[in-house]
């Protein structure tokens, strides 16, 4: 239970960071974000991303605009707002600090790769 909680906390923060990073590359459609995440092996179902995007948008980090689509209803394409860019920069700093911390903490530890699926 404690393990799961820690895993969730880790994934949650990193998922948001990854999503902001993906969007920062250029305007993107929600389901393309999923494809990118899948490519990065950060597997979530599509249903996870809609509430997350709405929350980030309402916090002023994202802006979207509608674009006509040939296959169905108009699509929302997301880009980062100036505030979002600011947040991403700060997260970049945090991440490099964290990744350094992890790197140093794990030094001389041999981690055997496990094929855990979750």
């Amino acid at each position: 239970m404690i393990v799961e909680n820690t895993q969730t906390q880790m994934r949650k923060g990193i998922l948001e960071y990854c999503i902001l990073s993906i969007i920062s590359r250029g305007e993107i459609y929600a389901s393309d974000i999923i494809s990118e995440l899948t490519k990065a092996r950060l597997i979530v179902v599509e249903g996870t991303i809609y509430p997350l995007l709405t929350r980030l948008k309402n916090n002023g980090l994202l802006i979207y605009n509608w674009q006509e689509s040939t296959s169905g209803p108009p699509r929302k394409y997301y880009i980062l707002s100036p505030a979002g860019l600011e947040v991403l920069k700060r997260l970049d700093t945090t991440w490099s600090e964290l990744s350094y911390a992890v790197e140093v903490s794990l030094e001389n530890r041999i981690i055997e790769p496990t094929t855990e699926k979750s």
Partner: protein
Amino acid sequence: MNKTIIININGTVFHIEEDAYEVLRTYMTGVKRHFTYTTDSEEIVTDIENRLAEMFSERLKLDHKQVIIIDDVEFVTEKMGAVDDFDIDEEDQTIRLSTGAYKTEKKLFRDTEDSLVGGVCSGIGHYFGVEPKWIRLIAIITLFMGIGIPLYIILWLIIPKAKSRVDKMAMKGEPINIQNFKKNFDEEIEGLKSGLRTASKEAKPAINRLARFIGKAGMLFIKFIGAIIISTWFNYIFRLLER
């Protein structure tokens, strides 16, 4: 040949088979419930609906089809993910689960597949999770109290018959999802097959069947008379005791 329904998902019109519609509707109800306590639930649900509509359009175009069938719904909802998997935060889920929002509601129907007369008793049995024989026993008791027959007729009239597979699942309180749908469908096919088999066995001369019917009816009549005798006897005993 299947009955189709026309639905409108945020402005896009689709033809969808009845079974597929029920599964989709249940899925969307689940989604809506899931986001009931979330701020901006409306926007999130609309986003999800739009995406589902888009995936349907893509699939229809790809296969040059006009009607959404159950496989399409299965594919699309699988891509969107089960509602339980939406949250990465498990704590949120347990809170929502404990509110009991996910329970499927049981509905009262007449079960004409397991019936002696109109399926009223077996339907009530399903509703309360009791074996139909106990309800039938109560019904027979009320029969002798004099209110049995009119009560039965009233119930027969007001309780709808479980027509579709969805009705049957609601009657038994099974959650309406694709797994259960398939299970139900398989059972139905199995029932149909065995029905055909017995039908071919029973293709005997009509006179034979008539004789058997009279035999059965006679048996029932004898039982009925017996029951009346027993009940008057009980009545008699009660009277004696009351004195």
